[in-house]
């Protein structure tokens, strides 16, 4: 009997194979089969949450089997507080995305197979505890996404999809060299050649090498996030992708970048992370402001939402590199939040497009009068994206800003301006699309939400309120893992500083900055508060 993680990773893949074998020409059957498989995956993944022990930072549901023994490659899976929510979000969003793809009419079986294969890749990325295995999933996942955008996308789909693949690969191939280097470096120093992540955590690379390795990993993740200035593939991919593709892209794929930063960049190369933190924060806040400003002037709703992602992901990266409990936990929660709110927005834009075959803001107006229910959902998603208290976005952004203020007040101030700007571009767009009088005849004849569309949006909106009003179940899971991560990173940095004192080398700037605030203190504060 395969373990839970293996089941949820490969169940969708089995579904994809089945679809290719028997689904051709049977559209209704293909849709249903894909929905059943993805829903089953989601339900099984819920058991992860039920069985998850939030009190420990250790990996759970661990599965391990040798794969290429001679090279120390193993098939090893596990989840901890950092990846658990992302796994659940992936399975949920895939199910909703499939439900939202009911109106795909060409090559349905292939489309659904690609969606399911994509799910396998994404889940594999979040669950791998072996660097090699991680890399395999990381790249293999590109292929279904490439096909989704390229076959079922808009007019410039080929340009967009090739750009997407090449950008992502540019980063990840350099990461591959870094992975190999790390493997031999660790092997030469310890005598065990392994790609096992936990073993590699325990190993400290010397400072000089850390910088290069960090940069190679970071570039790969920064492109995926995407961090300014590596974001140019994103608007193209988003605009050309089919609705479900955009939902998955924004909801899950971008999170693979931020997840990688937390899972690999910080714990594997803590010294380099400290060294590069100021630069990364600069890029993040530039991204926050730049993404917001560009979003403001977009005439196309989908492009606007795409640029808003650049801005929101800037928050998440900034929160990660604040490197304290609030920032990191906020970032992890915000990854889920962004998946929900931006996913919902893309779904809504898709519904508009289905009805009117346009996404230009100027083509709409007065939707509140003609499609009230739709407009309510649209408003909730918009407000959630802005970060209105009571909805999910607020909790995440608030925690991130709190963490950022504690560690780097200046960056905190600039980042906070992003919240204001988000309100400007989102509300302005919303006003032009939904309020006012419907001027065009086409807008007067619009149909309101169908039953299926209700089914797609309701779960998302419920979660938005749930996280917004009672975030504890979502924050609690990541606490232990985050605390462990921070203490791991800090202790490595401190050991290095001790060495620095012994050798009269100046301490790293970053450590000095934090020595007063002391993030270890802040972790303790959280503890005492929880008690």
């Amino acid at each position: 009997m395969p373990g839970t993680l293996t089941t949820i990773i490969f169940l969708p893949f089995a579904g994809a194979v089945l679809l290719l074998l028997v689904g051709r020409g049977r559209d209704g059957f293909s849709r249903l089969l894909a929905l059943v498989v993805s829903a089953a995956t989601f339900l099984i993944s819920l058991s992860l949450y039920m069985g998850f022990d939030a009190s420990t930072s250790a990996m759970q549901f661990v599965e391990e089997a040798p794969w290429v023994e001679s090279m120390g490659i193993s098939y090893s899976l596990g989840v901890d507080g950092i990846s658990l929510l992302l796994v659940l979000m992936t399975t949920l969003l895939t199910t909703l995305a499939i439900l939202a793809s009911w109106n795909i009419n060409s090559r349905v079986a292939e489309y659904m197979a690609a969606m399911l294969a994509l799910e396998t890749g994404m889940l594999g990325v979040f669950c791998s505890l072996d660097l090699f295995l991680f890399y395999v999933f990381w790249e293999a996942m590109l292929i279904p996404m490439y096909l989704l955008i390229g076959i079922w996308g808009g007019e410039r789909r080929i340009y967009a999809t090739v750009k997407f693949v090449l950008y992502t690969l540019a980063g990840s191939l350099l990461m591959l060299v870094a992975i190999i280097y790390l493997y031999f470096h660790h092997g030469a120093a310890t005598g065990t050649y392994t790609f096992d992540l936990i073993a590699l955590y325990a190993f400290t690379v010397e400072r000089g090498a850390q910088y290069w390795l960090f940069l190679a990993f970071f570039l790969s993740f920064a492109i995926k996030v995407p961090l300014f200035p590596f974001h140019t593939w994103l608007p193209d991919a988003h605009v050309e992708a089919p609705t479900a593709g955009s939902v998955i892209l924004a909801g899950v794929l971008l999170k693979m970048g931020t997840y990688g930063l937390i899972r690999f960049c910080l714990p594997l190369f803590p010294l380099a992370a400290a060294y590069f933190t100021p630069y990364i924060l600069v890029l993040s806040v530039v991204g926050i402001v730049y993404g917001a400003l560009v979003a403001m002037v977009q005439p196309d709703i989908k492009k606007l939402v795409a640029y808003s992602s650049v801005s929101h992901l800037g928050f998440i990266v900034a929160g990660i590199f604040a490197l304290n409990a609030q920032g990191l936990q906020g970032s992890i929660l915000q990854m889920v939040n962004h998946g929900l709110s931006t996913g919902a927005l893309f779904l809504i834009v898709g519904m508009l497009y289905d009805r009117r075959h346009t996404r230009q803001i100027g083509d709409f107006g007065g939707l509140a009068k003609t499609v009230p229910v739709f407009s309510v959902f649209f408003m909730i998603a918009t407000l959630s994206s802005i970060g209105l208290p009571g909805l999910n976005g607020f909790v995440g952004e608030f925690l991130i800003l709190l963490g950022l203020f504690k560690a780097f007040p200046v960056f905190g101030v600039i980042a906070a301006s992003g919240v204001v700007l988000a309100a400007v571009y989102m509300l302005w767009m919303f006003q032009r699309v939904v309020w006012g009088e419907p001027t065009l005849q086409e807008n007067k004849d619009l149909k309101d939400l169908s039953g299926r569309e209700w089914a797609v949006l309701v779960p998302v909106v419920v979660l938005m309120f749930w996280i917004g009003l009672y975030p504890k179940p979502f924050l609690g899971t990541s606490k232990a893992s985050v605390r462990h991560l921070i203490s791991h990173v800090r202790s490595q940095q401190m050991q290095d500083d001790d060495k620095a004192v012994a050798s009269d080398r100046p301490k790293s700037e970053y450590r000095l900055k934090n020595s007063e605030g002391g993030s270890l203190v802040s972790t303790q504060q959280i503890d005492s508060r929880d008690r």
Partner: protein
Amino acid sequence: MDINWTLLLPHLIVAGTALLVLCLDIVRPHSDGKAAAWLTLLGVAACLIATVKLWGAWEYGFSGMLVLDNYSLFATAIFLIGTGLTVFMSTGYLAREGGGRNEYYLLLLTATLGMMLMASGTDLIVIFLGLELMSLSLYILVGFFRDRPVSNEASMKYLLLGAFATGFLLYGIALIYGTIGSTNLREIGLALKQGRVQGDLMLLGGASLLLVGFAFKIAAVPFHMWAPDVYDGAPTSVTAFISAGPKAAAFIALIRILMLSLKPLEHEWASVIWILAAVTMTVGNLSALSQQSIKRMLAYSSVAHAGYVLVALAAGTDRAITAALFYLLAYTFMNIGAFAVIILVGKKGEENQDISSYAGLGFERPAMGLALALFMISLAGLPPTAGFFGKFTIFSAAVEQGMISLAIIGVLNSLVSVYFYLSVVVSMYMRPSTGSSPAALSPMGYVTVGIASVATLVIGLAPSRFLALARETVASLM
């Protein structure tokens, strides 16, 4: 003189089959070659079984000129797989193009025999003989469509440039013999190790010429000029054959010479091969970018792949040689597989050579589309395919030796290559069909595609076994 029959067994099987095919031609001179094809397959299968049974044996004879070890057996297996897959796809193809003859299979077998001699030769003369036997057979095969000018032109070019390469090689052998007084690989190695001839200019000259000769055969830049024209002009089944076996044979012989004889000169040749690898990868991939014809694209891609294997040679460690062998095996499957699909979806006269003519194929012929996509993804080096793991092992070997810049050049080249390999996938799946339904072909070709796709996936997903086999060969090089 005692003759060591075990040592000769694989060669005898192939040579015997070749003779039988020759006899068949006497009995049925005007046949379409189907019977010869089956006979060839039988011989290849028998030899493959012998190879598997002999695994682990270590025989040598003929005054140390020939050896049978894991290294030569592994190489022989690669050649036989290449030949077998080629035969499967040839019958239908030749019938369609109207060129089916017994000689075709005879020449495949003699070429294979030549390759096997190259793999098991431990004397420069034997290696040279093998190389010539292989090359002469190939010259004829390339021009096998006698009534087609492109085929003739390709054959002529191949012959002329091949003759040059042979000249270089032979001159190199002569210079080495002149310095050391032996053509035996072990004795050359011993002489160099003991420092009997240190840094001799004549020796270095000989080694360089030797390298040039092999560089021609593996189509390393700047000696690759023949490859696109020959690949393009040759019958597609022959192109597939050339791109796999003969290229592997040249690598196999080169590796044995470098490891067994010229190891003491590693300092000198490693940097040369380093540059050769970097240039070959880069020029191959950049040239492939702008190709319209799929055969020319694959020709340049095969140049680029020679560059990847050269990366392993530059590293020169056990791990690197293992990686090179593993890669040659993987490449045999994925490349021949790709050509097999090209044949199967093509039409008489091969109009279907442009990448743009594959538009819509992915949905019109799903299985063929999926297979070609798989081969392209594998050639591009994306997981979870044989091509990915092959590249991974090669770059690992380079990084281990501290050749990080070479590994980075390699991965950046992979990035470039993704563009043109995926352009085939783009064409197949993302562009509307041009509405031509290709003619059906004999089902034999599908065997090639089937075997190749399964192997590409299996080697990619469960590489342990193959990696272990490749590793077991390295011992005999030390």
